[in-house]
């Protein structure tokens, strides 16, 4: 078989984030902690964030899961770090639209996140990609 279809999912940027995750680890103290798992498959994320004056100062993650879930977590922390909470939530909304295959707001530069757009073609893997974003939303909304 050709790898063409697989390459739509496993873009090199994704595999790079999987192999060399950004913001891996845990913020020691004073932060927001979210534990979330995907009960159907066992993926797990431990997300810590430092939110001050409505801004995500820092975000780190730890966890176990497939390439898509872990790469997505790495990209998410990279994307929300330094952003206003409202901007982070807006990104999450755009990401959700992207996963559902809807038209999404492309006025904002998504950077590496764009590489995950192919996941929408693999319905079984959408939950993998959205886990970290759900954890972030939960963290900033119920700190």
């Amino acid at each position: 078989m050709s790898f063409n279809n697989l390459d739509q999912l496993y873009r090199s940027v994704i595999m790079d984030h999987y192999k060399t995750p950004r913001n891996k680890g845990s913020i020691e103290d004073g932060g927001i902690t979210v534990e979330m798992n995907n009960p159907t498959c066992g993926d797990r994320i431990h997300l810590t964030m430092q939110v001050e004056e409505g801004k995500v100062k820092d975000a780190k993650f730890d966890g176990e899961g497939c390439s898509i879930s872990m790469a997505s977590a790495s990209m998410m922390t990279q994307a929300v770090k330094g952003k206003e909470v409202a901007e982070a939530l807006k990104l999450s909304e755009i990401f959700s639209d992207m996963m559902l295959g809807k038209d999404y707001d492309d006025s904002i530069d998504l950077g590496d996140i764009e590489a995950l757009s192919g996941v929408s073609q693999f319905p079984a893997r959408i939950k993998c990609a959205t886990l970290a974003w759900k954890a972030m939303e939960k963290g900033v909304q119920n700190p």
Partner: protein
Amino acid sequence: MISQELKKYFPILDQEINGNPLVYLDSAATSQKPVQVIEALKAYYELDNSNVHRGVHTLGNRATESYEGAREKVRKFINAASTEEVIFMRGTTTAINTVASGYGRMNIQAGDEIVITYMEHHSNIIPWQQLAKERGAVLKYIDLEDDGTISLENVRAAVTENTKIVSMMYVSNVLGTMNPIREVTKIAHDNGAIMVVDGAQAAPHLKVDVQALDCDFFAFSGHKMCGPTGIGVLYGKKDLLEAMEPVEFGGEMIDFVGLYDSTWKELPWKFEGGTPIIAGAVGLGAAIDFLNEIGLENIEQHEHEMAAYAMERLSEIDGLTIYGPADPLKRAGVVTFNLSEVHPHDVATVLDMNGIAVRAGHHCAQPLMKWLDVTATARASFYLYNSLEDVDRLTEGLRTAKEYFSDVF
């Protein structure tokens, strides 16, 4: 091998997935259905559909005969002493919950022990956790051997005179291990406990004889044995069922209804509240006819051969770990594995792009995953329609996955 000619009875298998002929290796999750079962459901709805056990019209009689006829087929299939001991339910989960609620609440007191194992499916863990919490009972786990089997010494160590219920799966949905139910039942009985068997992975694959096992309850699902979803069976010994209160109340299960009190029908109907799963039972009956035609002994033999060949071929792949007993005769047609550092979801996606369906995840057995010290695994499970060629396709697909992810690790 029995499979090549049998594949033709399963229309769903004759299709391409992502441009490749489908290889279905997820029968432990649910089996595919032969035309015989699909036709039986169609015929029931086209010719006989009606409610059962009421009215005097002809269709009602036909539906009742079909439904009760299916019960007799199940009785023979598991060698129960009487159809009074065969209760139709939604599936294994409902059946075990019925035992935990109906028997457990009446018989478990604070300090009593309920004994299960580390390899159980969540459906044979959580009902007991809930019962133990409610009654202040102690839930104990039997240790596994390194190869994922259960030793009778460990059973004897866990089961004491305080034990009231022992519940164990007959065949593991992850490791494929076939557990020594008859011997465990003896140990349970010697200690005054009852024996509950989760037979979900056993009934499709080997000859079940509840009287020879001497177990007190035996639960299984129709959909894993060529039958429809939504139908399953709880077998229970008559004296225990008679002493039990129903769990669901309503129509169908009553004898006399007064304003403030009611009485129940006799067995097995007192446990079948509401309009029963009539078409499901008819479909299950057709599935049993189909399996009997092939012969459970032949199916079991075929699965040992499939497991042996899969273990041989998969072992050729560097970095592939197989979990569970090394001896294929100690396992049913289930092979659970991990491919070096590649996450099982990623393995399953590559296989799916090759038309091969496997399960990836924790297989509803989180305590077992913890025992194996993994977060997830991939699983290939075989049934009567699988062939050695399917294993070759799997092996080839796994080599592709390995190659594809080789530059990542």
